[in-house]
């Protein structure tokens, strides 16, 4: 977007408090780590506001000032917190240098509509900061696990060698353990044989149920719907205990088939809900038109209805797959040791032996999930483009 409004340089009375506020936040983090959050908060605010004042009034060349800040921050960080401290504070130096100039030049208004009031501009950026904080809150626990999985020791601990980024602090031995240990390999194999079959069952039954229940003439459809999605609402442990006693009586407890059926039952509600949602936008006159042209119901389903509700079916299937792949409570009851799945193995590992192999597995699973979702998204965009639904 072209710049429509003139960018006015801003006074320190505007820049100072904002940079100071960010300084206070950074100071709070550093201060808490060093034992006194309050002191860090005050010092951070004063130091950063002071730095902003100096940068704005000393007319120094911009480029070298920015570089200088990064270097100075890095050196301070290096002395206080080692290699990792140096890297983090170099980033902080880069951030604060840019932030100050960005505010002082008034560049923050560059891409915004010219008629926005200062309050709206403030909200525009506050909103982004809030989103960023929430995002960080959600993702940090997952990110922290990843470097720990390369730990050279058998504990969930950042060793001094790791913090100093020395190669001897890192190792792939937990990955090696995962790929060579027969317990983990059989758990992986069990998960990979249970989840797809359970998904297939959930998708078939769930889609059929959703289509049936979307017909207005089915008697008692709300009641049937409620029963079908009950596995999602009833606490898992109740379903698990119930399934345990029921399956034991009919000889399914401790069998592969039993676990598959239990997981399918858990997956069906997800498929029903997503498919029902896509069916809301489905035009029933299309099936009547197909019938009018001589297509039998099966052909109509596969050639007309299925392609249109496919996105709902696929995302329902994905949920069903993840439910089965992640599930630990039901399999502990319904399965026996011969059907130990990955989550079961991880659960045992966490309880009996806090081993970073679990973190290695977690990292791999996160990687696989990302790859799976990315592939799905690429395929979806491709099909949209092919069908001319999107300009991209």
């Amino acid at each position, binding site marked *: 977007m072209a710049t429509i409004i003139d960018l006015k340089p801003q006074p320190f009375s505007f820049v100072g408090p904002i940079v100071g506020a960010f300084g206070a936040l950074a100071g709070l983090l550093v201060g808490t780590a060093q034992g006194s959050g309050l002191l860090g908060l005050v010092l951070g605010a004063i130091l950063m506001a002071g730095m902003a004042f100096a940068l704005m009034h000393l007319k120094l060349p911009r480029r070298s000032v920015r570089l200088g800040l990064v270097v100075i921050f890095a050196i301070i960080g290096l002395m206080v917190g080692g290699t990792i401290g140096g890297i983090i504070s170099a980033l902080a130096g880069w951030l604060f240098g840019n932030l100050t100039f960005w505010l002082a030049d008034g560049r923050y208004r560059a891409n915004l509509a010219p008629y926005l009031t200062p309050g709206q501009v403030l909200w525009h950026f506050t909103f982004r900061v809030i989103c960023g904080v929430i995002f960080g809150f959600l993702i940090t626990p997952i990110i922290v696990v990843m470097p720990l999985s390369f730990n050279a*020791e*058998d*504990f*969930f*601990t950042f060793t001094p060698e790791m913090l100093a980024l020395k190669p001897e602090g890192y190792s792939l031995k937990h990955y090696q353990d995962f790929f060579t240990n027969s*317990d983990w390999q059989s758990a992986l194999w069990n998960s990979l044989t249970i989840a797809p079959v359970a998904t297939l069952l959930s998708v078939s039954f769930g889609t059929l149920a959703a289509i049936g229940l979307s017909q207005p003439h089915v008697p008692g459809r709300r009641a049937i719907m409620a029963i079908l999605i009950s596995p999602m609402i009833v606490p898992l442990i109740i379903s698990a205990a119930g399934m*345990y*006693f029921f399956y*034991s*009586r009919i000889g399914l*407890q*401790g069998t592969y088939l039993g676990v598959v059926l239990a997981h399918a039952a858990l997956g069906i509600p997800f498929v029903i809900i997503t498919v029902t949602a896509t069916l809301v936008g489905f035009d029933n006159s299309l099936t009547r038109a197909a019938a009018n042209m001589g297509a039998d119901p099966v052909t109509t389903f596969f050639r007309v209805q299925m392609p249109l509700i496919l996105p709902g079916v696929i995302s329902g299937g994905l949920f069903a797959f993840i439910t089965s792949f992640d599930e630990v409570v039901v399999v502990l009851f319904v399965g*026996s*040791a*011969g059907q130990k799945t990955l989550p079961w193995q991880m659960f*045992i*590992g966490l*309880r*009996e*032996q*806090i081993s970073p192999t679990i973190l290695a597995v977690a990292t791999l699973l996160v990687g696989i999930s990302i790859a799976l979702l990315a592939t799905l998204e690429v395929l979806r965009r491709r099909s949209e483009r092919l069908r001319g639904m999107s300009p991209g």
Partner: protein
Amino acid sequence: MKLLTTLLTGSALVAAGSAFANDHMASDMTLVSWGGAYQTSQQKAYTEPYMAANEGVSVTWDESSNEAVSKLRAMNEAGNVTWDLVDVEGPDSQRLCDEGLAMEIDFDDVLAQGDDGSDVEDDFGPTLINDCFIPQIVFSTTFGYRTDVEEWDGRTPTSLCDVFDLENFPGKRALEKRPKKNLEWALLCDGVAQEDLYDVLETPEGLEQSLAKLDTIKDETIWWSSGADTPQLLADGEIVIGSAYNGRLFSVIEEQSQPVAMLWDWQVFDFDGWVIPADLPDDRLARVLDFVKYATDTQRLADQAAYISYGPARASSQPLVSTHAELGIEMAPHMPTNPANQKNFLVNNIEWWADNQDDVEARFQAWLAK
């Protein structure tokens, strides 16, 4: 022609019968244990050689010993016991035995004699705690401390009571989130003599005295519930001293080379062993009995000590304990049963705890929540 067929089938059956002399025994077993290094030691010392000697037998491990009692109850109610042999601690075996969920054993018949010719009862001695329990190991709960605590100025804890001494040994402690052992230790450090321990503890005042002693370190204590917690906390430096199973501490000190040392003073001994679920079908029972006889003989119990620092339950196994399978270090000094390590010790008083567990546990948990 028909006669010939019958004859042929008959002789084929005889041949098959002699080839599989064991076919009255099931060919797979589900063993329940604790996972981790302990289960690995059982695999190396018991099941791997057993499977090598008995071709066609397979073993499935289930790491469910923690909830063995409740799971066996559920299996029993559902009429579908899938376990063949369950590794439990002494007190759990007592409960399973009392409830009729574990099979009563005729020890002379089921277990092998000692290699030195001693009979079963003598060889296992005090570890035979009830009629269902087939002992494997003696383990102890004791303390590990970090050796690099600056605030201690070079002092090292030498007695149990140093755990309660925040002045000379400041820092966080870890204790198990259960009253057992903690209450005994607190009283011992509050001047109660070993022989009076349970008489004092049985009175309401004694219980309060013990909790009052624990109160002195409560603010500095992290309460653990899984055997892996204290090793992790010690390695992390989050605690400076904590109670744990001696085998776990051995692993932290010798196998993981962490700056941690053992404090054996007033370690509490416990026994761990097998129970056989009651009413197994004949073929599975025959297989399990065959395995148990093999896995608890003198040599197998001694072999296990090469993988983990728990003492074999048989007296005749003690002289055979040698070196660690990978590290090559002598295992005897790391055994809880080593004379140098057991100057002061307690043995888990299963009877007293069976009678008093519920009341004391309730009082302890209320105290914890305060």
